[in-house]
């Protein structure tokens, strides 16, 4: 939040970052002695602002810049609503479509998420220096190409919001690959940022939809791991689901439905809400799930959505129907782990264990997730012997 506020004034993310870091160092020294200021956040921002101005004044170029920039005085009430605007500007800048996805993710997590470069690197399985390079390159692009620091114009807003949501969703999903360690931190960041976005843009139903989706997915996390392996939805102990998150997700979804402007994230959230409402896998309203995926497919005709639809169809109408719906997707999804897992499951249910084994082994080969690997090994070992 402090970085956002300063980035607004100084239009240079590096200056903003360094100044905020300086301010935190000073705070760590002074607050234990002087006591907490009445407005800690405001103190940080004001101190950082002064530091940034000091830095600028040290160089001729900096003094030139200082003259050009319109730097407001210390923060007051008005300053605080400006912070929200700054935060929004920063989110849209970090998620600008001219930046490649991995750069958007890195920049968002670093500048808005407050994660260290090392933490982000570990979460995305790259080295610290590789992640630092992504952030540097992204900042350079913003500066050199002059990506404007602002909330997009109304006409562009829907598309640009979808871009932000895609970044947050990617961060959440990366955090789900491995449920423990860095994964938990990533998921928490994604949810925190999604909440902030909803506070900033309460009238955007897709932003609300994403938060609902993340809340509902997160509600199942306590049940998703057992003995180091992923537990599938069908086998999860539903008593371990987080009721508060389910309530939040369902309430958010009700808000969306009232707006009646459906979109992909709202629909995905609706699917998860159907699961959350079901006592058991078997008693899930599969017809409703199929309908929702069909609606989603009409908006996003991707192979992955078709896959999810096929899986739901299988639950509704049996494994032969699932297999018929899955086969046409093979070419598009041949490297996609959930596809092979779904095929394996359908063959298992229809009694062809050899084909089931082949599919599950393919999934096992492909998955980068340790917990998924453990789960698949368990599944393979549970298949009746040849």
């Amino acid at each position, binding site marked *: 939040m402090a970085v956002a506020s300063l980035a607004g004034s100084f239009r240079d993310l590096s200056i903003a970052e360094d100044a905020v870091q300086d301010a935190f160092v000073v705070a760590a020294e002074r607050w234990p002695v002087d006591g907490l200021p009445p407005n800690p956040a405001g103190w940080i921002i004001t101190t950082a602002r002064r530091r940034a101005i000091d830095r600028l004044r040290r160089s001729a170029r900096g003094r030139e810049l200082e003259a050009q920039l319109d730097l407001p005085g210390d923060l007051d009430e008005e300053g605080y609503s400006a912070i929200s605007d700054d935060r929004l500007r920063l989110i849209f800048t970090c998620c600008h479509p001219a930046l490649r996805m991995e750069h958007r993710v890195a920049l968002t997590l670093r500048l808005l998420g407050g994660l260290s470069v090392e933490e982000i690197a570990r979460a995305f399985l790259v080295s610290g220096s590789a992640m630092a390079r992504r952030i540097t390159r992204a900042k350079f692009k913003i500066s050199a190409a002059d*990506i404007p620091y602002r909330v*997009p114009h109304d006409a562009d807003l829907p598309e640009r919001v979808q871009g932000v949501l895609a970044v947050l969703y990617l961060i959440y999903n990366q955090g789900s690959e491995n449920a423990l360690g860095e994964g938990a931190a990533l998921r928490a960041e994604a949810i925190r940022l999604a909440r902030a976005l909803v506070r900033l843009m309460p009238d955007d139903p897709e932003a609300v939809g994403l938060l609902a989706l993340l809340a509902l997915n997160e509600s199942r996390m306590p049940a998703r791991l057992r003995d180091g392996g992923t537990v599938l939805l069908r086998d999860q102990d539903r008593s371990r689901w987080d009721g508060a998150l389910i309530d939040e997700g369902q309430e958010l979804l009700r808000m969306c439905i009232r707006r009646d402007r459906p979109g992909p994230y709202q629909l995905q959230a609706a699917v998860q809400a159907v699961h959350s409402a079901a006592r058991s896998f078997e008693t899930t309203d599969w017809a409703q799930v199929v309908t929702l995926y069909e609606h989603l497919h009409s908006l996003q005709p991707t192979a992955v959505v078709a896959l999810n639809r096929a899986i739901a169809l299988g639950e509704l109408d049996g494994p032969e129907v699932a297999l018929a719906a899955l086969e046409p997707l093979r070419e598009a999804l041949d490297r996609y782990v959930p596809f092979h897992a779904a095929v394996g499951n359908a063959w298992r249910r229809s009694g062809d264990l050899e084909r089931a084994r082949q599919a599950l082994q393919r999934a096992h080969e492909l998955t980068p997730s340790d917990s998924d690997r453990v789960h698949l090994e368990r599944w393979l070992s549970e298949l009746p012997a040849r």
Partner: protein
Amino acid sequence: MNQYLLATYGSPGGGSGEPPSPEEMQQRMQGIIALEEEMDQSGTFVFGGHLHGPDATTVVRPGENGPMLTDGPFVESKEHLAGFYIINATDLDAALEWAKKVTDCIGNVIEVRPFGGTGKAVDNMPG
């Protein structure tokens, strides 16, 4: 105010893909004329041009015994630099809007590159 290069890439046929029909060519010409008028009116157009293709191109490169010449483009590829605009734009978003209009008009791929400095090198030296 920034300057951007909008570099148009195309394949020898004309646009990217099938060579355009005479009617399509006519439509594109009209579109481009109108677009360039808009660029002019808004102070966006700085300079532009349509380049002759790879067959008219010569490359000069440094060599052991002095600069060497080659007939043909720098990079042999299906797509070549077909033309360009240099435009004034307040920021990347503005430049991208113009690039989108160009590509809507003529169907080519446009590379949008910001200028670091324009004019002579001596005018862009630091200090």
